[in-house]
Structures are given as C-alpha cells and as structure tokens.
C-alpha cells in the first residue's frame, strides 16, 4: 500500500512537468494550429531565467581582510553578495528564495519571448504544411539551445531550493500511517502543488474571463469569430505568450529537482509530444490528464517488482503506451472529432 502511494507521489511531480509543457503545446496547437518543436526550448529558457536570476543575486563583493591570514599567508577574502550588503537580512532572504522569486522575473521575460517568437517567426508559418512548422521550430530549438550553451556551458547548473523546503515531508504521518513509511522531499510536493495551481489558473482564465471565452470560440471556429469583428489574431498571439509563460514557469520550478543544462528541454519535449498525442491533440483537459497519467505510470514502471517482471520497462513505458493508444484510440484519450484527423 505505502509502496503504491509512494509511486503515485513520485509520478505527480514529473507528471506535473509533463502536464504543464503539454498544456502549453496544446494551447499553441489549438489556437494557432502550430506544431511547436521549440516548446521544450521555452522550458529550458525558463530554467535558465532562474539560473541567471540566481547568478545576479549572488554577485559577490570581495573585501580583503588584512587582519586575518590564510594558511598560505594571503589576506582572507570575505565574500558577500551585493544584495546582502545592500539589504541585509532581506538580501539573505532573496538569495535563499531565488528560485521562487525568479517566477516574478520569468513571467514577463517568457511572455516577451513568446510574443516575439510568434510575431517574428511562427506567424509566417500558419499556412505552411505541418512538416515545415516542425522543421522550422526544430531549427529554432537548436539555435536557442546553442546560444544558452555558449553562455552557460554544457554542464548542469544545480539550483538550491529555499532552505526551509530542504528536507522531506512525512506524508505517511499525515495520512494516518505509521511515521516514516512514506517520506517525500518537500520541494517535489511544492512542485506538484505549483503545477496544479498554474493549471487551475490557465483553465480559470480560459473558462471564466471574456478574453478566454473569445479564445475558446476562436479555437472552435476562427473564421466566424473574425467575421464578428474581433481581432482574434492578437488574442491568439497573447495565448501563445501565455503558453510560453506556462512552459517557462514549469522550467523555473523544476531547477531544484533536476539541475538544468542546455538540452533539458529536448528531453522533455519528446515526452511532452507523446503526452499531447495520448491526451488527444487540441484537448487541454486531455493534455493535463495524460501528463499526470504517464508520469505516474512511469514511476510505477520503475518499481523493482515490475522491473524484475519486465526488464527495461521503465525506460520505454511512455512510448509503449503512446503506441498502443494511437493504434486503439487514434484520437487520443480526449481528442475532439475533426481536430487533426490526419
């Protein structure tokens, strides 16, 4: 029982990341009809926004302390981050909480990147075949990746979670089980909660606001909405920016779980595409559900009991499920009729 619960928990944080990326992919696809292979790169850019914000905060002032000497006879260097020197305790707090705080930076940055990407490149590809869209965004992903690699190097850069989330939570005790049976890192729980909040926010935005209503109408029948005198194109551009923000935030918050390197996005992209297809092209609910489902399935498959039954299953389970679903239910779990039927 607790082993199963633990695997569900394990799946939730990874599933959260898949769901967030897949949500963004589906938004871009449902509104603009664009198959965006650069979406993983947006996830990666989000992660590196957190990295650069942390670097910025931890820029250090070096003071030579001539009173003390190192064993080598040089004066001792006292390094303090500038923010600490300027703001004192608040500065310390900012350095400690750099990852959550970079959300505030990432939102405008990713929105800007998303809008520029849409206006500058993707706009010209609406009427081109899907193969061209895949290829040009694939090229863009390579370019973004290489630029990041040039500035940040090829090695993963670990990011610390805030100090108070460093340990693990005793989830078992909350659920009335014996203490210490299910222990789970705090930050992963936070990530799951965060992804749930972001997903809820996106859905609320689309379901409860007038803007969202127009966008949903546009996804159904773009031409009619246009004929009603609504500038649907501008709204779709904003939605693309929103999709970029969602991917970026997923990346920001994932940095303490997996140190980002320049190709972290590509690894997530392939999986997220599979998630979108399993959920059903163009179905937002399907993308989220499939994201969590596949995350949990993957963590179940990596249990030792199952691995001993079918060795290697943990590596391929997601692809296997995708192949089966595509063959049995070609439209995906919640795909709508008439959307990308071929």
């Amino acid at each position, binding site marked *: 029982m607790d082993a199963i619960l633990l695997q569900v928990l394990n799946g939730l944080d990874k599933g959260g990341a898949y769901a967030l990326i897949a949500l963004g992919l589906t938004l871009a696809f449902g509104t603009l009809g664009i198959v965006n292979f650069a979406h993983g790169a947006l996830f990666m850019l989000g992660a590196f926004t957190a990295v650069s914000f942390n670097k910025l905060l931890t820029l250090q002032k070096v003071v030579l302390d001539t009173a003390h000497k190192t064993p080598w006879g040089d004066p001792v260097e006292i390094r303090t981050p500038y923010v600490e020197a300027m703001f004192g305790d608040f500065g310390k707090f900012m350095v400690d909480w750099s990852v959550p705080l970079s959300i505030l930076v990432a939102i405008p940055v990713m929105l800007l990147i998303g809008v520029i990407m849409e206006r500058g490149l993707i706009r010209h590809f609406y009427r081109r075949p899907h*193969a061209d869209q895949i290829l040009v965004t694939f090229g863009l992903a390579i370019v973004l*990746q290489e630029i990041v690699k040039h500035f940040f190097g090829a090695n993963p850069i670990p990011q610390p979670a805030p100090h108070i989330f460093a340990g693990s939570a005793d989830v078992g005790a909350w659920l009335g089980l014996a203490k210490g049976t299910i222990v789970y890192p705090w930050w992963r729980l936070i990530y799951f909660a965060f992804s749930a909040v972001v997903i809820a926010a996106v859905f609320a935005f689309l379901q409860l606001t007038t803007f969202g209503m127009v966008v949903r109408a546009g996804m159904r029948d773009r031409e009619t909405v246009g004929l009603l005198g609504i500038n649907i194109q501008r709204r779709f551009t904003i939605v693309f920016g929103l999709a970029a923000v969602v991917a970026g935030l997923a990346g920001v918050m994932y940095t303490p779980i997996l140190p980002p390197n320049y190709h972290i996005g590509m690894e997530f992209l392939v999986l997220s595409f599979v998630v979108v297809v399993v959920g059903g092209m163009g179905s937002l609910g399907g993308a989220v559900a499939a994201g969590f489902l596949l995350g949990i399935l993957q963590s179940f498959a990596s249990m030792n009991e199952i691995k001993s039954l079918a060795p*290697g299953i943990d*590596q391929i389970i997601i692809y296997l499920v995708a192949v089966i679903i*595509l063959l049995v239910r*070609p439209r995906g779990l919640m795909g709508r009729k008439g959307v990308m039927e071929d």
Partner: protein
Amino acid sequence: MFAKTARGDWLLFAIFTAVVLAAPILFAPIGAGYPDLLQKFAIYGLFAIGFNILFGLTGYLSFGHAAFLGVGSYATVWMFKLLSMNVLPAVVVSVVLAGLFALLIGYVSLRRSGIYFSILTLAFAEMSYKLAYSVLTPITNGETGLQVRNLAKAGVVNFQHGDLRILDRAFGVVEHGVPMSNLFGIKMSGWPGFYFCAAALIIGFFIAMRISRSSFGMMLRAIKSNQNRLNYTGVNTRPYLLAAFVISGMYAGMAGALLAVTDPLAGAERMQWTASGEVVLMTIMGGAGTLLGPVLGASVIKYFENIFSAINENVLHQVFSWLPQGVQDVVVSILSLFVGEGWHLTLGLLFMLIVIFLPGGLMEGLGRIVSLFKRGKAASDAAQNGQEA
C-alpha cells in the same frame, strides 16, 4: 529496367558516377580530398537518398530513421564478431535486418499519417535508443559501444576472450594487431574504404533514380499530392507507403553498415532522435524530392561541419589580424559564436533560413539562379535585337 531509362537520366547518372569516382581529385582544391571526409559524404548521402524516398516522394516525415542506422551498425559489428571481417556478409545481413525492423515499425506507424506518423516514428526510435542503452546491453554493450576484438584462441566457443569469426577461423585467416574490416583481403580503410562507400552510393543513387521514374514512384508522388483522392478512387495506399518505408529503412541500414565498415564500432547515440533530425536536415537542405538534393545536402553539411568545427579563436584572430585591435576583438568574439563548438548554432540558423526562404533546398536555389541567368540572357538578347533593328 535498364531499357526504359531515359537518355537524360543516363546522362545524369553518368555525370554523377564520374563526379563521385573523381571526388578525390575534384574536392582536393577545397580541402576535402581525403578519404575520411569523402567517406562521410558518401555514407550520409546514401542515408539521405533513402530518407528522401520516403519523405521527398510521399511527404511522410519520419523522425525515427536513426534507429535503422543504428540497427545496421550493430548488425554489421555482430557479423564481424561472429562470421568474418569480410564486409560482404555483414553488409547484406545489416540491410536485411534493417529492412525487417523497418517493416515492423512501418506496419504500425503507417496506420496514422501527418504529425501522428512523425510522433510514432519518434517514439519507436526513442524506444530503441533507450533499450539499446539499458536492457539490451548484452547485445549492444550499452554506453561503451560494441567493438570488434581480437580473435579468440582455437577451440574457444564463447566471447569471453575474444571474437569467434567462424568463417575467418575456418579459412585460417591470421590476424595481426587490431582486426580490420576487409573485402577479400583489401583493407577497408583509406581510399579502398572510400571507393567501397562510393560504389554503394552510386548503386543507391541508381536505384533511387529508377524508383523515382517508375510507376511505383509516381504512386508515391500521388500520395504526397492528394492521398484522399487516391483512397476515393479505390487505391489502397498503405502497401505503397510500407514499401517506401522499408526501402528507405534498408538504405539507412546500409549507411549504418558502412559506418561500421569504415570504423568497426557501434554506439547507441547513433540512434538518438537528434541523429534522425540530422538526416531530415540534410534532405531539406539539399532539396526534398529531388534526386541530387539529398547527396548535395549531406555533403554540404558534413563539409561545413568539418571546416567550422576546426576553426577556433586563434585562427579567427589570425584571419582578422589586419583589423584594429578593438574591432578585431569584437568581430572575433561574435564570429566565435558560430565556429568550433558553436557549429550547431550555425547549422540551426542555416536550417531555419533554408526552411523559411528556400523550402525547396539548395536545388531550388540553384534552379532559381539558373533561371535568373537565362532570363538575364534572354533580356540582353532582346535588347541586342532591338539595337540591330
């Protein structure tokens, strides 16, 4: 088959053959006249020709062709280990195995089309890659990669102390040092290695040309232009697609085998989806759907990869030493983004530019230049006529 080949095609084929065979001399002035690089041109050219039979003719974009390349490489190295260092059995077995593998994957993937097909092939290729890295380690040797080892002592029947090479042992071949692949005693390194790949490329090109001109090729083009209409007229397109998929898988297997022939080593990273992306890139770069395009694209990419990766900042400083110091530093720091380690950035940019401005690839670009030239000539002719009159 031969009789129906049109005269223009024979000419094209003859020119192609001549260029490939004379490549060591022709490419020497641009610094590419050595076997290691020319070999790569030929191998990746073959890979791209095969990919083009699927993508260029039918429009089905596969993102998993590297899996067949990997299968070809693994099969070849295994044949080296089991049978003989002679390349013929290895190549034949690799092509057949890759074909069977393609049949399996194609049968499933081709039930869907469009982007679903791309994602299915991508999923299968990633699956193969992950398996090669993890569970299949006894066959693929995991991260280390599969290698050829020295011959085991006579009478030994397991792989603990070396390779078996049943045929070689039966014929009493004596090995000195590291085992080299050979074609009946001709070592497959240096120029002989290149000419073996070149022969494969020429044969591959000829087959692709015949396919492209045949009624089968016409059917594939019809699928690309309007599959619905074909279905409505009562044509079952799937067997044609599957045949094209298997043929292109066999080309990929052949390319993988040649990679292993010229360097008896096979690793899982050959199957990664970025490798599949690379062949897509080569085909698009040259011009999808054209005969020469894929070879051209593969050669251009491999050539510039070779050149650009070799340049570093010191070289750039030397080149721009005539500029004032400050300007020189700026220019060098900008350009160094694109060379050496940054070659992939150049590749990505180039790729984007091609897709955006020249969807037909380099072949289209050449065509445009030629037509521009012709139009210019026609105009000047007209002007001359006007003067005379």
